[in-house]
């Protein structure tokens, strides 16, 4: 039997404000498969439902209809505790705004997913986190707090945090949206390099056609439907 895809969506729907006069359906039945080690871009106009889709995939939100399988495991019926631990184990997030904890150093922020499992990070985990920080050029800044880092540096810490737990799937919602072109290029190149080294699957939302063009696959979302899906 072949390995299941990292991600498989079947008829996924999402409505907001259900049961109120303002009820809207944002995603109208999404079908999508993402194989292991894929490097895919999710593009589309603002308000087309990209963040909503990413939040559903990341198990931060629940769909109203359809099924969402992570690593072959259906997730609709899982309770919040299971979804949370599945998220912690298998998914890494990178948000547009770096979203680091201000009370923790860069290294501690990277170790946060490991810490959330309730145990003090092991020596191996610490060394691996440090090595990753070094790999992205932040080795000397590992003990700095987020406010002591530049925007690009913070985003690199966030990327390292998303990868440190060796997730199967990395979800990045406009990771370079808040950076200047140069920093954005650097962050994107970094994602590309780490993807090559570590082989996770990546789904990255971006507005930048230049960056989308550097992905292996481009999924276009318009008005809550997949308009096009092209691999290069």
């Amino acid at each position, binding site marked *: 039997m072949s390995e299941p895809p990292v991600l498989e969506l079947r008829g996924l729907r999402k409505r907001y404000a259900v049961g109120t006069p303002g009820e809207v359906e944002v995603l109208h039945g999404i079908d999508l498969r993402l194989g292991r080690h894929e490097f895919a871009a999710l593009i589309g106009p603002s308000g087309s439902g990209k963040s909503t889709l990413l*939040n559903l995939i990341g198990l*931060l939100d629940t769909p109203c209809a359809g099924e969402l399988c992570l690593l072959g495991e259906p997730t609709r019926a899982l309770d*919040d505790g299971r979804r*949370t*631990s599945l998220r*912690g184990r298998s998914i890494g997030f990178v948000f547009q705004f770096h979203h680091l904890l201000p*009370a923790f150093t860069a290294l501690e922020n990277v170790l946060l997913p490991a*810490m959330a*499992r309730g145990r*003090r990070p092991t020596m191996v985990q610490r060394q691996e986190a440090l090595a990753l920080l070094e790999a992205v050029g932040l080795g000397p800044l590992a003990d700095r707090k987020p406010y002591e880092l530049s925007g690009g540096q913070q985003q690199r810490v966030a990327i390292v945090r998303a990868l440190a737990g060796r997730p199967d799937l990395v979800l990045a919602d406009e990771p370079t949206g808040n950076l200047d072109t140069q920093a954005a290029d650097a962050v994107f190149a970094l994602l590309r390099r780490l993807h090559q080294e570590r082989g996770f699957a990546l789904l990255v939302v971006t507005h930048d056609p230049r960056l989308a063009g550097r992905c292996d696959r481009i999924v276009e979302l318009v008005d809550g439907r997949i308009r096009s899906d092209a691999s290069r």
Partner: protein
Amino acid sequence: MLWFEWTLATRLLREGRAQSLLIVTGIAVGVAVIVFLTALIGGLQAQIIERTLGTQSHIRIRAPDEVARPLRAGTGQHLLSRVDQRAQRLRSVDQWQSLVAALAGFAEVTAVSPLASGPALARRGSASRSVALMGIEPAQYTRIVPVPRHLVAGRWQVAGNDIAIGAQLAAELGAVVGDRIRLDAGTGRADVFTITGIFELGTRELDARFVYLALRPAQALLDLPGGVSSIDLRVRDYLQAEAVARRIAARLGVTAESWMTINRNILDALAAQTLSSNLIRVFVALAAAFGIASVLAVSVVQRGREIGILRAVGTQRAQVLRIFLLQGAIVGLIGAALGSLIGGALLLGWDALGLARSGRGAFELQVTPALFLAAAALATVVGMLAAVVPARRAARLDPVEALRNV
């Protein structure tokens, strides 16, 4: 086990220093008030009880009142519906010597002292005062009321015709140690006694009326040959006096009254005071709890995004809940430690103030490690309870909502 929660709680508290300080201060003030109040009121009550018990026995065995029994007809109907209370005349406790032996056999009883007491007139020169004769066996009686400790003149020698009288009485009679006074109990027998000691028990009524003399001359004056009017007892635990008195009454068939019955009004007043101080404690704790809850609630709102990050990286709701509960408990504990220090300092100051005013502590404050431990436990629990509502809100926070880009 709670390593993660503990790490997060302490970090968040340290990061939000101003807020943490605000809560800790609030708790510290509350705990200080409670510690100070408890020690003060405990001391005050202990002093009142000590004053009361310093001059009286824990239990008094008396000859039963003479009860006028209504005549009954053979059918059991009352012939007389009105019963006149007879004037009480001094009567002896039946077979008191064997009763003393029996009372000494009770494990809880630590001292037994027979007493022949009654009213008399004391005369010196042209001055006369009505007094209370207290005929005692000094060795026994002083184990119940330590009169020798309260002597202000002379020495403690109560035997034969040597007596000790209260300071107020001595002043009113113009008598000093070595003077002789005449005691007359109105039974046709009167005698002259020598004052060997003057005491001040601290209760005006007693210092103006008490005359301690040996049992035998008292029996003679009061026309109680070989008898005693009551037997005084001391028990191991004065708070158990009522229970012991009941057991003695039931077992020996005598009238036994505890100090708690005799001083019912004092005990009622103390109970009322305890109630009001408990109310104050409850309200202080409530005020502190609402303070903690509101500051933590604000902190949950401010930290929405951080909570969202935590949830996104795999932190369970229960962990988020515990992180905020722990914050409540930690500020509670720190506040309690600080409050105990402040309360302790207040108590020391109070003590020094009393010392300066009267030469001795205003009164013995009841400061025990248990008090501080209880305050710490209370503050921790209150802190945790106060954190319940904000913590639940934090745990239920929708991570999508919290992480929505701004």
